[in-house]
């Protein structure tokens, strides 16, 4: 059941991503997905394996549910936030981005409640800081690859 619930939430995030208007090109999206996942997984592994601040349940189903969240949900959520931060909206985009950031709190709570995470030694504000770092890093990557594309276009023209 745990895995099914996590997959359902992940699927909803994928639907949200597929429906939203996108500012990133396909190549930009792939790059941000790869880079964002690398950053997020690295931080998670440091917290989980090295520091034991997050303890994941070793049960097969619950560990797989955690993998679904880490590998399939969070990277796509980062893509959503990156696209939103690239919108032309002035204030609204930051409000929506803050909303996405706050939505990571119930996601963590859901994982704790489902027994996916058995111990969470990071306070909520700490988790928010980590997730805001993921979002900022993903936005930075988007800026980087867009700048690389623009620079090359200028050079070629």
């Amino acid at each position, binding site marked *: 059941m745990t895995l099914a619930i996590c997959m359902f939430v992940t699927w909803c995030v994928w639907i949200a991503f597929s429906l939203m208007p996108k500012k990133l*090109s*396909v*190549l*930009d999206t*792939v*790059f941000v*997905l*790869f*880079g964002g*996942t*690398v950053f997020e*997984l*690295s931080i998670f*592994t*440091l917290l*989980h*394996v*090295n520091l034991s601040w997050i303890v*994941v349940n*070793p*049960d*097969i189903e619950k*560990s*797989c549910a955690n*993998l679904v969240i*880490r*590998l399939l949900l969070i990277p796509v959520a980062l893509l959503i936030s990156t696209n939103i931060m690239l919108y032309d909206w002035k204030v609204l985009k930051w409000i929506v981005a803050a909303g996405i950031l706050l939505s990571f709190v119930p996601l963590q709570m859901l994982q704790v409640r489902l027994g996916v995470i058995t111990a969470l030694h990071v306070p909520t504000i700490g988790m928010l800081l980590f997730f805001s770092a993921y979002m900022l890093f993903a936005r930075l990557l988007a800026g980087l*690859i867009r700048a*690389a*594309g623009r*620079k*090359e276009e200028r050079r070629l023209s």
Partner: protein
Amino acid sequence: MNVYDTHFDSNEWFVLSGLFIGAVLVVLLPKRFRAKNAIVYYTCGLYTGLFFDHSLGLEPIDLYDVDDSSAYEWTDFLSYVSYGCVSYIFFYVYDRIGVRPSRIAVYVLVWALLSTGMEWLAVQAHVFHYRLGYRLAYSFLIYLIVHSCWLALFHWCEKIAGERPRRHPG
């Protein structure tokens, strides 16, 4: 947490030398792709390495450890960076020699064999520590799948972007 050794020895030298050789090749090879494509092709290897090491190498599966311990170390990250060089060279050679569709399976097989050989060397250098009966032969299967996915990504990126990589003489 499993600790295999705490010294700067064969595994660190293997990762650093592999990264150096890969980086030199990536820098020295004539430019072949647009900047965005090149960045994606490089990041692809980094992502794949991390993806498998954090799904197969951690609980609940935990089939192997990388480098000196099961903790995440700086040499682990450098090894992922060197995977980026491998993926870039993989795409570079594929595009350079212009593999025909009928030969794609052969190209994937050759690279899977090469990658398995590299992994065997890495095991000898104590970069990988297999656990729970994991064997090098299983990696061969994973490489076949990964390299096939890489080629699918390559063609997909080209198709979606609606462009062929810019070709340079040589």
